């Protein structure tokens, strides 16, 4: 039997020791007896506390200790000992960095696993009936942090099925899947992690992009400063995209619809004010942008200073289409500033952001593997709210003994 909250048991044991000590050390009124010649006893009270080597009422003492221990045991949430076997949990990478074909070795690992979590930017449990699906250019960037966090949270659910858990991650461990929190979250998994490396997905070369901006278009100046490489994967249009543009995007390109005057776009007009600035992927531009419309729903890739979307992206075939509601037709040299150039570079970049499929350094992978031991389920806290039937029985027994205590005490008088 294991205990979900053994501190309660330790506390109850300590309290029991205290009760025993009090029983032996308590300043008790001496037991009375009939003594006809009591009047010849000098009237002097015994004031020293009596310390008994033996408990004066062993049964009463045992009953009180039993009540405390039973309550402590009930709150410690006893659990039946799990069977002696190792459980397998698999984290399967299904981000854009992973080829969509699953190898036989991967399938074998998944077949042996008791719990499979597939992850890209988020993680969820995989059922055999749901199939493996497919990855595309629109599949989100993978997140090892999200995957590890999901594993840590789901592990207690396996606590009653085995005595240890082996965690396996099937992933190419691309650099873009690694973030600052990955190692910190990995420390929450107090055991070994088996890393099964798979090759990264081949890079898809979208059709050549470009822009058809007018000569006096300020955005053209920005793009010119960024150079032709900036629009290699994207097509920037100022007017509503046509079928040709959409088919181009569906082939793997990033179609950027960036109207010169946002008010000209067929979007909902919801503003008539100036936002103090706009930020996207860590780049911030502060300027009196006149905002009037909200871009269509999609993945937000740029936001106004107050958090409302300024640009969104939606998958389209193997590529994506992007709507940018940031006005550029304003006077001054805004479009020539470095901040605006950096912001524009991000907005006309490839779908899903820049791909960095190169695997992370071996040193980081070693840190990810961790210690050689497996995670013992005895150290895992069961899911909160889980019912532990034994606790109820222990509490009931404690209540019965608690009710019997005054009866026994009264009977001893």
């Amino acid at each position, binding site marked *: 039997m294991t205990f979900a909250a053994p501190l309660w048991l330790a506390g109850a044991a300590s309290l029991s020791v205290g009760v025993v000590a009090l029983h032996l050390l308590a300043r008790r009124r*001496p037991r*009375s*007896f009939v*003594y*006809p*010649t009591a009047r010849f006893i*000098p009237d002097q009270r*015994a004031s020293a506390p009596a310390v008994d080597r033996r408990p004066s009422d062993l049964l009463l003492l045992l009953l009180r200790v039993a009540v405390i221990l039973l309550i402590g045991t009930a709150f410690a949430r006893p659990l039946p000992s799990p069977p002696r076997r190792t459980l397998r949990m698999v984290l399967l990478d299904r981000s854009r960095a992973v080829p969509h074909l699953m190898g036989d070795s991967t399938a074998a690992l998944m077949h042996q696993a008791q719990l499979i979590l597939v992850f890209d930017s988020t993680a969820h449990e995989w059922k055999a009936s749901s199939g493996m699906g497919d990855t595309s250019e629109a599949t989100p960037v993978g997140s090892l942090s999200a995957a590890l966090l999901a594993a840590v949270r789901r592990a207690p659910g396996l606590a009653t099925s085995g005595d240890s858990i082996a965690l396996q991650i099937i992933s190419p461990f691309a650099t873009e899947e690694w973030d600052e929190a990955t190692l910190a979250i990995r420390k929450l998994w107090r055991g070994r992690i088996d890393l099964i490396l798979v090759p990264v997905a081949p890079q898809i070369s979208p059709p050549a992009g470009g822009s058809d901006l007018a000569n006096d278009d300020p955005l053209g100046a920005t793009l010119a400063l960024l150079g032709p490489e900036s629009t290699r994967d994207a097509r920037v249009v100022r007017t509503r995209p046509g079928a040709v543009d959409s088919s181009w995007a569906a082939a793997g390109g990033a179609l950027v619809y960036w109207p010169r005057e946002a008010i000209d776009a067929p979007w909902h007009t919801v503003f008539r004010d100036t936002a103090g600035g706009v930020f996207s992927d860590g780049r911030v531009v502060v300027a009196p942008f006149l905002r009037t419309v909200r871009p269509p729903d999609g993945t937000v890739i740029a936001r106004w200073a107050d958090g409302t979307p300024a640009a969104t992206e939606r998958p389209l075939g193997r590529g994506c289409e992007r709507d940018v509601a940031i006005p550029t037709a304003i006077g001054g040299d805004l479009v020539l500033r470095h901040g605006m150039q950096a912001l524009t570079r991000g907005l006309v970049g490839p779908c899903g952001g820049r791909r960095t499929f190169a695997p992370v350094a071996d040193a980081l992978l070693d840190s990810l593997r961790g210690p050689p031991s497996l995670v013992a389920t005895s150290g895992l806290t069961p899911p909160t709210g889980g019912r532990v039937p034994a606790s109820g029985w222990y509490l009931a027994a404690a209540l019965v003994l608690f009710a019997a205590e005054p009866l026994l005490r009264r009977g001893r008088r």
Partner: protein
Amino acid sequence: MPLPLSYGPLLDALVGVSWPARRLAGAGAAGSHPSRLRGLTAEFTEYRPYRQGDDARRLDWKLLARTDRAYLRITDDHAIRPTILLLDASASLAFPEDTHGKWVQGCRLAVGLAAVARSDGDPVGLIVPGPSGELRLPPRAHRLAVAEIARALDETTPAGSASLVASLDGLRRGSRVVIISDFLDEEQALLERARALFVLGVEVFALHVVAEEERIPPAVTRLAVDPESPLRRTLHDEVREGYVTNFTRWRSALAEAWRRAGAEFTEVRAEEDAAAVIRRIVRGAADDGVSR
């Protein structure tokens, strides 16, 4: 009415024991104790010249015929001594709690002394004052008197408190009263009453029953509760010696006071052999001799 079996060995041990009176008996039925009166018994003592008014039946007619002198034949008279056994049945006699040793010893003394007195031909009676009334068996000399006393005592349980002094009213001159008690209540009043009885010519025996646990208190810390009062005292090591001193001093003073009042005072331990105690009591009376 058969005698309770538990008294059998005691009564067997007292066969042949007599209880002579300490003082001359007064007028009464013929008995075994010397009487203050002179009578017509066969036990000749002396001659006395006839005086006018003497009973002519006491003239020694043979002496008158031989010597022509009128003399009265004087003989010693013997009378009975009614014996009253006054037994304290208060709660303090029910000690120790488990054995009631003091009460058991009191009963054995009462039955034993009744048997001894009865064997001398004296009528014996019993008075046991109790909270719900007084058990009183008037002095009787018939052969079942001792059995009645034993039976009555067996049916009595010591409890509560009752006045012994009130039970001593109405005792006749020339009788004998045996007070069996622990003398923890009405100490002075009882003593005064005993002194008055002694003046009246009543033989007073005071038997003070003391338990071993009273003489030597138990070596534990306990709350001592007086069974006949709300008094409570803590008995512990620091006061044990003081208690022994106080109790010993009180017993000595009690014995002295009773003896000064003219009573035969005997301290009896609850654990003692009752037959030996009774022999000591009646022998003490004999050793002292009869004061005339």
